[in-house]
């Protein structure tokens, strides 16, 4: 299948991204380049210099809301991608409202407690929306430990599922990049399967 046909198909879909840090910003860029039509992105954070070691932002964007900067950066890749930005803190209450209508969702938080909250909320309150989680990507090297696991039709996990970020094991561009692109790859796979159904 030609890329123009793939892009035309992917342009019909809406993907939700919870968090616009290392996972969310890079995953969003990969999905935009692939041609996903609408991205719903939620994050209340502001860009700090330390984020530039792995997140898809630039020096002159320090101090900006991540959602504003990501919208700007994605429009430089493809100005036809529709970005629906929510600069709010995600909670059990607002997640179902913000992400209802999405075809697939990406969990892109950094803190484990938030990951747990999002997974529980999406699986219980937004049934039928597949969720792609990132878990375990701290440090460097050990690429072979990073994998993608399908738990069931509605839950996938990408990462090594074992390394946790700490002061001595920081998150860095290569491993965070691998996991965020694995998540994007699962999203594309899920959406491309819908092509077969439509025939």
């Amino acid at each position: 299948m030609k890329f123009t046909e793939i892009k035309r198909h992917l342009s019909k879909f809406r993907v939700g991204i919870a968090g616009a840090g290392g996972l969310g910003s890079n995953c969003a860029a990969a999905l935009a380049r692939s041609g996903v039509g609408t991205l719903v992105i939620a994050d209340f954070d502001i860009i700090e210099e330390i984020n530039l070691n792995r997140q898809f932002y630039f020096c002159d964007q320090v101090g900006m809301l991540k959602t504003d900067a990501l919208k700007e950066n994605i429009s430089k890749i493809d100005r036809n991608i529709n970005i629906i930005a929510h600069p709010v803190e995600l909670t059990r209450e607002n997640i179902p409202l913000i992400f209802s209508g999405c075809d697939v969702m990406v969990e892109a938080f950094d803190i484990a407690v938030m990951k747990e909250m999002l997974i529980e909320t999406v699986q219980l309150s937004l049934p039928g929306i597949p969720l792609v989680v990132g878990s375990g990507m701290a440090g460097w090297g050990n690429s072979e430990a990073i994998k993608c696991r399908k738990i069931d039709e509605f839950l996938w996990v990408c990462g090594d599922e074992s390394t946790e970020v700490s002061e001595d094991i920081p998150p860095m561009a290569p491993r965070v990049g691998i996991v965020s692109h694995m998540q994007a790859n699962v999203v594309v796979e899920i959406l491309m399967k819908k092509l077969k159904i439509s025939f």
Partner: protein
Amino acid sequence: MKIILNNREEEFDKEPITVSDMLEVKRFTYKMRIIKINGVLIQKDRYDETLIHSGDNVQMLYLMSGG
């Protein structure tokens, strides 16, 4: 009884067992996790009362900070 735990067969001495029993027997102590039984998410406050039966498909996912 035999169950499937993360795509592997696991054997337990009695049936049924609660989710909390399973975590104790298997010494799964890391707290940040998601558990699904036959595709249904089990919330943390239900671990003591939710039963696992023979043949159940139990999936466990550890959540690591970082992103």
